[in-house]
């Protein structure tokens, strides 16, 4: 089990940040991803593998109106 934006979320072995974003349908481009507090740049989304128990934050910087 991992945490995504403080909620529990099922973990799958080998899931990357990109996999997670696709599953959650987090399509907004203007995001900041941190895994266990470490910033993951966009270039790394395909490569960064999420481990069981990781704490993932996907901060959407939505300006709104």
């Amino acid at each position, binding site marked *: 089990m991992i945490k995504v*934006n403080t909620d529990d979320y099922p973990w799958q072995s080998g899931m990357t940040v990109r996999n997670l974003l696709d599953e959650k349908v987090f*399509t907004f481009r203007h995001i900041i991803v941190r895994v266990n507090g470490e910033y993951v740049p966009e270039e790394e989304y395909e490569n960064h593998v999420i481990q069981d128990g990781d704490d993932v934050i996907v901060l959407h910087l939505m300006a709104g*109106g």
Partner: protein
Amino acid sequence: MGAILKEYRYTPAKIERGYSGKSLYINVADLRIEEKEVTDFMKEKFTGGKGFDLWYLWNAVTPQTRWNSPENEIVISVGPLGGITQYSGTGKSLVCSISPLTDIPIDSNAGGYFGPLLKFSGWDAFELQGKAEKELLIFIDGNNGLIEIEEAEEYPDDAHLLAEELTRKYARDEDDMVNVSVVCTGSAAKHGYMGLLNFSFYDPRRKVVRFKQAARGGLGTVLNDKKIKALVVKYKGVTPNLNNAADISTINKVGVKYHKQMHDLDSKQNAMRQIGTANTVMIMSQYDLLPTRNFQTGGDPEVVNISPEVFINEWLTQGLHDGCWYGCTMSCAKCADHFLLTTGPYAGDRVTVDGPEYECVAGLGSNLGIFDPQAILEENFYCDTYGIDLISFATCTAFIMECYQRGQITREQMGGLDLRFGNSDAVLELLHQMSRGEGFGRLAGLGIRNLKKIFVEDFGADPQLLEDIGMEVKGLEYSEYAHKESLAQQGGFAMATKGPQHDEAWLIFMDMVNKQIPTFEDKANALYYFPMFRTWFGLVGLCKLPWNDIVPADNHKTDSPAKVPEHVQNYVDIFNAVTGQQIDKDELILQSERVYQFQRVFSVRMGKGERADDYAPYRSLGPVSREEYLSRQELYDQQLRDLQGLDPENMHLDEKIARTRSYREDQYEQLMDAVYRRRGWTSNGIPTPERLKEIGMDLPELLEVIKPKL
């Protein structure tokens, strides 16, 4: 054209550190013109812009004043940073008056050239009071120190014709057109309460007059009631430092840094330069947040037909400067050129449509079940030229459509208009009726609060259902964001002082997606900081969008990326550089809070600023109908389990709806308590004398209003 009724000569005050030091007062009943001092007291307590507007308005009215009383005023002010050219979004005026929809003060912001040119003509603020006998036009010539009041019956009513004619009238030649700006409404302002003010600016590349709007609250209805056809200002000679800033070097440096950031990053972030605010339409739909069919759901598969790409590729001219004041490289006021109108009095004409903004695509589009970009653009055009606030019109029409869908009103009662969701022909016909004051158009512009009463009393509609689905608070319609699952945004809308406009707070993603504000205290802190920060812009002449619709490349490394700290610092630096003061980020919030609390007390004074006025219709808080519950069943059933320990498997749908409702309504009450505490209000929503004293606003006139309510 018309007879000149009055001429007034004056010596335009020189601007020092962002202030001319003078405000203009005109009474259109007796044509009295006065020059008033802008005092140190005003600058200290109210800063400028909306602050000055509200102060003058407070002194003009009594608690008995209604929107159409002669003593009601329209006040316009741009603020000390207004008119600088070096940063983006520096031409915003704020306008205040008592609103026909809410009966309390409304404040509304608009771009365009009027505000800065007004200040350069020597006026920090402009008060209009009284009601004229015949329609008037007021012209301010800031180069020659001349004010003319002219009879104006012969001029056209609709904005796109009126402003073009007036701009040409006062400009010497083509190059002079940019030096003229017009404030006017449109024909529909004669017939409803949601009339807006258009603020013009001339586009020298397209060679057309264009508009931004001070749209919310019915200011155009007030302008028409006062029989003022238009306000015109002319000032030639805009230079980089007309504000006589204390430190032009800092302004230049910060400006160049910001422009470079815009050049490098906008296309990778929000593409404001290509599409403007409508860039969020697809995202909102993908996150189930695009208001659809009167806020019933959060999106629709057909939204793809009104996506940003469709507008960029097929309708909006690309690559030209589209800022609504000099220096704005965010350049987000996109438009559709040579657009062929197919309905109404201008059918067959090709026009420039200013938009669509996000609110237009969401409001006149998905919230009405319309997914046709051409129809949306035509609706946008007619709202602007007829002078109709398209947010109020969209949310009110969505309400009408749902009432019709649910059999609460009949087609006959709408004069034969088939106003069902998706029928853009009927929507356009309704707009034309509003312009002519005919048919159902006479009722449609009165707003949801008045329509609820009429539908119940005259058409026998179900009062509880209408209360639940009529999206208004304090009489003002909601702006176009679906927020049923965001308690923070529910509070941000319903507890906003003027009514549910999102200028105070936009917390939906922070709350629902990022889950950054889980507790009541977190939400209350957000509903303190963000309204204070976001309303500061209106005191000083700035647009909010450049603050966070683009962020620096390293913003993600900061402690609080949602606040965009580097941009907040830019604003502090520019404020100090113009005014010569030495404020910091905390003082900025304090400046804003002074006016914020003043506006709340002003609303209390006018009869609508207490707890009872801060409640939301249930459509804002949760699922009203079975279809709404079923559209998010998994989520709602899970919440019954997790939050209330109930077993949804063994509950009837109506019981699940009722239990969800009672839970959410209780949550909202608890949020109110937390927010009121944080804002320094009593449990009845009244600002306390202690809080007012803390921020230096314990003025005797404010204490007099709140004392009996404590």
